[in-house]
């Protein structure tokens, strides 16, 4: 691997068609385009093109700037939007007046964001704006996320934006402060991993099942130290929404970023979005973006191949996203794992999840269903869930909620009548935000209760203290809602 001899950009962008001395991967091209300076130890000062900010991981960063008398270097490359704390109950009363937020700490954090964006001149989408939503839904939707850019956010699921061919990754609050102040980060180049999924997805199998299958294969730490690129027929055939679902969960496989080469589908998705280039600039941008895909013969440090045709609708059984089984599978026996540490953690997981080895996944009763989160809250996800919900009823004793990823997704779903499909079936139709994905707002799964969730983390306590989470696709979540059990969506829809 010749990573070391890829020179830092001197005065030209690789993506501008400047020829490199050897075939490069998408990641290497974006990296080379953004190196400002390279130190002897390999640490590079990298330019950051796009910075998304939300209320949870930014207050201490703005406080740091203020304490040192520093400004935001490029407000025009920054976009702030509240999402994690916002309640998903109605935000205005019958007269259109804003309703107060009950939790004083949440209200305080949201107020801090408003004060900070005002003080530092950062573009901001307010909680009441129709464009408000989860940062990772808003970025692509507004055309803020663009191919070939470096994009960061104080949130690990920033990997989602890699679906559009951006080098996108989550950062901590000190790095948020660093980017606000300097528009750069100090980084070392990562190793590259190609995850190639060929074949054709079967009936009832979605992007979520693909990414669950990937994490089940490589493990929760399998991608640590790597930037992943997803390739192959299955990925090419996925819509941009589906690709966002796959890239979103890269971090659950340990990879900080998960890229997908931009193609005609990407360009069609972005064209005309409010913050995307327009007119002559659009044409120039697309011409450059066509240079981004990995060159034939480009070398990856590791390659994983998965047969897409063999992927079944899948879900998790434990408390790590790597604990994946097909819906037709059974709860595994901890003793079946070779690794003693894994055996031990599987035992603990099963105890926490209230499951016994050998139990068929199909038929396990659920009390809650959550359709939402930055993984699965875009229009296509809601359509898939609505197709299952249509003409059916949420089972007795099940609380099922649909939380659109943004106000624009919500509006479009309402224009398509999906809200009526959901409410007629007994689902709650709520305001956009992170919601039950991490239970920072009032949407929580009560202790010991079981939730079929389209979110991305089944960690202990993630959806509320003691909550038991099964990760699955929107269609599978809807199937769980209407049957009251973990169910094979293929049997409902076949």
């Amino acid at each position: 691997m010749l990573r070391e001899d890829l020179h830092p950009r001197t005065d030209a962008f690789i993506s501008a068609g400047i020829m490199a001395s050897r075939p490069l991967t998408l990641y290497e091209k974006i990296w080379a385009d953004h190196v400002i300076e390279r130190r002897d130890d390999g640490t590079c000062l990298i330019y950051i093109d796009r910075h998304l900010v939300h209320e949870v991981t930014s207050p201490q960063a703005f406080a740091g700037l203020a304490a040192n008398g520093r400004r935001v270097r490029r407000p025009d490359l920054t976009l702030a939007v509240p999402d994690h704390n916002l309640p998903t109950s109605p935000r205005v009363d019958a007269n259109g007046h804003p309703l107060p937020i009950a939790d004083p700490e949440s209200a305080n954090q949201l107020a801090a964001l408003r004060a900070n964006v005002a003080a530092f001149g950062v573009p901001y989408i307010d909680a009441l704006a129709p464009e408000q939503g989860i940062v990772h839904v808003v970025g692509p939707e507004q055309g803020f996320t663009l191919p070939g850019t470096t994009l960061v956010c104080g949130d690990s699921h920033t990997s989602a934006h890699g679906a559009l061919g951006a080098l996108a990754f989550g950062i901590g609050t000190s790095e948020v402060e660093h980017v606000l102040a300097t528009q750069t980060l100090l980084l070392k180049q990562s190793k590259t991993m190609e995850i190639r999924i060929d074949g054709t997805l079967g009936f009832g199998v979605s992007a979520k099942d693909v990414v669950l299958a990937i994490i089940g294969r490589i493990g929760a730490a399998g991608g640590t130290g790597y930037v992943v690129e997803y390739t192959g027929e299955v990925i090419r055939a996925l819509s941009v929404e589906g690709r966002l679902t796959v890239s979103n969960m890269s971090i659950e496989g340990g990879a900080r970023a998960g890229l997908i080469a931009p193609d005609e589908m990407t360009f069609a998705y972005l064209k005309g979005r409010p913050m995307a280039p327009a007119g002559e600039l659009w044409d120039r941008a697309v011409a450059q973006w066509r240079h981004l895909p990995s060159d034939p013969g480009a070398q990856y440090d590791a390659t994983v191949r998965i047969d897409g045709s063999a992927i079944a609708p899948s879900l998790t059984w434990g408390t790590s996203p790597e604990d994946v089984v097909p819906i037709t599978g059974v709860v595994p026996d901890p003793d079946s794992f070779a690794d003693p540490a894994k055996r031990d953690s599987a035992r603990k997981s099963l105890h926490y999840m209230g499951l016994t080895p050998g139990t068929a996944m199909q038929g396990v009763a659920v009390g809650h269903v959550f359709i939402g989160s930055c993984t699965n809250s875009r229009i296509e996800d809601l359509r898939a869930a609505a197709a299952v919900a249509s003409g059916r009823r949420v089972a007795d004793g099940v609380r099922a909620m649909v939380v659109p990823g943004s106000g624009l997704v919500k509006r479009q779903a309402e224009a398509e009548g999906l809200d009526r499909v959901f409410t007629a079936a007994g689902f709650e139709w709520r305001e956009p935000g992170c919601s039950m994905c991490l239970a920072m707002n009032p949407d929580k799964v009560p202790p010991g209760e079981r939730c079929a969730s389209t979110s991305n983390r089944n960690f202990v306590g993630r959806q509320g203290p003691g909550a038991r989470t099964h990760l699955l696709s929107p269609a599978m979540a809807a199937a769980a809602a209407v049957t009251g059990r973990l169910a094979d969506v293929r049997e409902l829809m076949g």
Partner: protein
Amino acid sequence: MADPITTVHGTAYPWGAKNIDTDIIIPAHWLKTTTREGLGRGAFESVRAQAGNLFDDPRYAGSPILVAGENFGCGSSREHAAWALGDLGIKAVIAPSFSDIFSGNAFKNGIVTVVLPQDAVDRLVEVARDGSITVDLETMTVTTDHQDRLQFELDPFRRRCLMEGLDEIGLTLAQDTAISKYESQDAVYRPWIAGRGRYAGIAVGDGGRT
């Protein structure tokens, strides 16, 4: 940036658990704070809810070192995890591997993440039950009361920052000329990158809802 740090010495939590995610280190409901302080109270909340847990064991109370398992700090990017550990008094974590984001966050808060092979970590879990451990950044070794001497590697830049307590943002700001040069070239090659300020100043519905 934290105070300069050259050695960490003391008792250690002999944990060794694998895949400890940031939701375990500090659960989400603690993230509503707007400061960095006081998060030690929420550290390992779900672990501490269990009787006889390591973190409430008087033998290890206030230990500056945590010995953990593979993939420590996986999950979210919340720097609150590092702040919570720091608030608990932890200055070094030793594990076979760390999530990339966590180790960056730890470093920025003056917490050393020491990567050692699994067998060395197993040994340290044993030693830590009743002995103390020293992490030395000068010699890049972990030593114990029982004559163990384990060599580790540390990124040279991070090591220097830790040992000198450098302000990373200040260092980068000193490179302003290079950053500005990049920006002016970028404006030629990728003129669409500069924002059009579409949302600048937008604050819809300024009606008291926060």
